[in-house]
């Protein structure tokens, strides 16, 4: 096990270095610079170059990379060119929206997916089981923004029960903040629930066809008892993988939900800063996400070893 962990950690460090170079080059490869964005369409080349110089964007790329990465290693994420705000402060303020949104959406998705997926797998030959499978297919096909806007129209515009969008800070009103998140979380949870239901169903169907489950059934266990006692741990492996990937995708990938509901979350911050070519804000924020995603993957990998001893022995 220690060799397995050491190997995984080494891979993690190499992947982070590669990712830092990739994100640095990608944002610059997109072309344009923040000075041109700040000054607008009618600025002169001279003015843009002067402002770019003030921002230090005229320095060689290698110098800019090591300057950024050196500060990053010391915990300094840098500052926004346009407002001089600390990137760390920006990220923290946005995470106070994105984390509750993503975690609640994922929890809601799992609360829908685990019972629905299990039921449709165990009772796939019954009409209700087939209906659950059908609904999950429909849910996967529904675009998240469409679901969001319809929920907003129904519960916000028509019924007036919840805000159609916008954000109330936690410190301004706790319940206001919760109300701001209800519709986005439902939109996210429904869509996630639909796709996760498919994975849960597939994983449960797989294990229910295994010999050890059949053997368990032969001892007199019901389907449910067999699933809970011998099947669940095996079914959890692919589900854990998918959930890990979903968390990774959610942290930076809720841009549509945040846009539809006007939430100033991390995804919208990244998108806006890519458009504005705020290279330091984008690089540092995306690096944090990459590190977070890799950590999740590392944990999932290590979890494999715990859930299935054959995995760590094989490696």
């Amino acid at each position: 096990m220690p060799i397995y962990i050491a190997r995984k950690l080494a891979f993690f460090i190499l992947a982070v270095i590669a990712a830092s170079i990739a994100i640095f080059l990608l944002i610059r490869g997109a072309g344009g610079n923040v000075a041109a964005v700040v000054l607008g369409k009618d600025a002169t080349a001279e003015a843009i170059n002067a402002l770019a110089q003030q921002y230090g964007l005229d320095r060689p790329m290698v110098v800019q990379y090591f300057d950024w990465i050196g500060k990053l290693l010391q915990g300094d994420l840098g500052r926004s060119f346009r407002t001089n705000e600390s990137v760390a402060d920006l990220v923290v303020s946005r995470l106070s929206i994105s984390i509750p949104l993503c975690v609640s959406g994922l929890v809601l998705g799992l609360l829908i997916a685990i019972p629905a997926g299990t039921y449709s797998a165990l009772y796939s030959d019954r009409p209700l089981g087939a209906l659950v499978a059908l609904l999950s297919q429909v849910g996967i096909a529904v675009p998240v923004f469409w679901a969001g806007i319809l929920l907003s129209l129904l519960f916000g515009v028509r019924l007036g029960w919840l805000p159609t969008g916008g954000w109330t800070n936690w410190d301004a009103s706790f319940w206001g903040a919760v109300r701001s998140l209800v519709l986005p979380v439902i939109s996210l949870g429904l869509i996630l629930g639909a796709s996760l239901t498919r994975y849960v169903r597939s994983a449960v169907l797989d294990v229910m066809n295994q010999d050890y489950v059949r053997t368990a059934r032969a001892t007199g266990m019901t389907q449910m008892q067999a699933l809970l006692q011998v099947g669940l741990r095996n079914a959890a492996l692919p589900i854990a993988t998918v959930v890990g990937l979903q968390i990774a995708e959610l942290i930076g990938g809720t841009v549509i939900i945040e846009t539809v509901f006007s939430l100033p979350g991390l995804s919208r911050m990244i998108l806006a800063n890519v458009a504005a070519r705020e290279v330091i804000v984008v690089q540092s924020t995306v690096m944090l996400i990459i590190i977070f995603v890799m950590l999740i993957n590392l944990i999932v990998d290590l979890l494999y070893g715990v859930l299935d001893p054959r995995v760590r022995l094989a490696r």
Partner: protein
Amino acid sequence: MLTNSKSFRLGLATLTAAAAILAAMTGAMAASPRADEGKMILVARQDPGTLDYTKSNLTALRLWIPANVVEPLVYFNHDGSVSPGVAESWTISDDKLTYTFVIREAKFSNGEPVTVEDVIYSLNTMRESPVSQNSSAYQAVSSIEKVDDRTVRITLSRPSQNFWRGMGSTAGLIQPEAAAGTIATNPIGTGPYKLVSYTSNSALEFTANENYWGEAPAIKDVTVRIITDGTAGLNALEAGEVDTIPVITIDLWEQLIARGLDKSFTMVTYPQIGEPTYAVINQKLDPELRQALATTLDRQAYNDAFGASWGAENTCTFALPNQPWYEPASPESCPYPYDIEKAMALVAEKGYASIPLEYASLSDVPDLSLPADIMVPTMQAAGFNVTRNAIDLARYSQLIFQGRPPQFDVTVMSGDADPAQWACPDESQASWSTYCSVDYTQALADADEALTDEDYLALMKKAADILRKDAVIVPIIAKKGVGLFEPDLKGFLEPRVAVAIEFAPLHW
């Protein structure tokens, strides 16, 4: 889960029908719950990113900060009169070379007194501003000096209309020198409001400035909510969560009519917030080729495509209807009107089909990417060998500024109606359009030096004529500003300081 703009737009179009049905089910609107609380919520469609108006020229910033938070030296009113701003009085010498401003005894919103030093600092900052609209007002300025503790004298090397008008616009905004370091997030001024907070992509919060020198505004607390998604903005308005969307963009016009919002809310149209939409044709192309391309620009088709004849006028003049040299499209004012048959004949006669042309479609700005759907097929139908290249604004700017001949032959843009942006003393100083004309630049310079308003107008008309005949900057439509207001929210005034929406005159 990244945004796919095409499917997004398709989805929004589908939603229009659903929204219309749901809207029809909504009952009569109640008055805003904020009316009794002395509050108001407005919607902004764009996040400014920075509030530093000395460095940024973004409309998203200029809508809210000037006039509300930071005031200019003077205000130019719509009746042609000039009102005091930070300057309580002024004198102009007969030769129009010396301007003397007496600064009012007032305080900034941070409680610090306005000093002559602050005024001189502010004017010098704008003189050095990288934003050309700010710095161009100072081209004729030779000195800015303190006369006494309340008086500033500005001396010009020649008469300048741009200078005097600039003192009532963003070029004349006055800030305290001591607070300049935080201008990007917390600009300070003498206006009727002060900024409480700015959270990017979320909101700007304002409250009445207790140190304001004038009458206290009727509405004490103002929130500008940043809702970038247009449908979400209309939903918020319809649900009564916000009180006005003072600037409606072209991509929302069809939806707001389908939902009947133009009937349930007060709709105002005003040219100040508008922008001319125009084609930029590469000046390096042969003049006859440029003229042939210009005849493929179907203004009416573009206008019709958005069903918004009330929001835009066809024009061949680079101006907005509030500028006195503006002219709507007519046989007299359009040297190259839409004429597809003439274009086809020219293509065949001159062999233009063999010349590959590139149309740059700005993908991240709906107003500017949509015209390509109309313009490119028309050019191709005329026989031009045009390919469409989608590109975002930042990348476009970089390519334009690389110092090589522009690789785009046609682009449709919209922006400020400032004709001075095309002034170009020599090719090394050409702006992003690459347009450079000695005659045009001279006509603008002559207009700037005009001693009377009549001379100024005549010379600006002459400049506009040169511009339209050169077929490089080819105006298509003049978009007006369109706003939707909660019916009980009264008092809207057309902007006086550039495009700024003034909160103070609004009341319940």
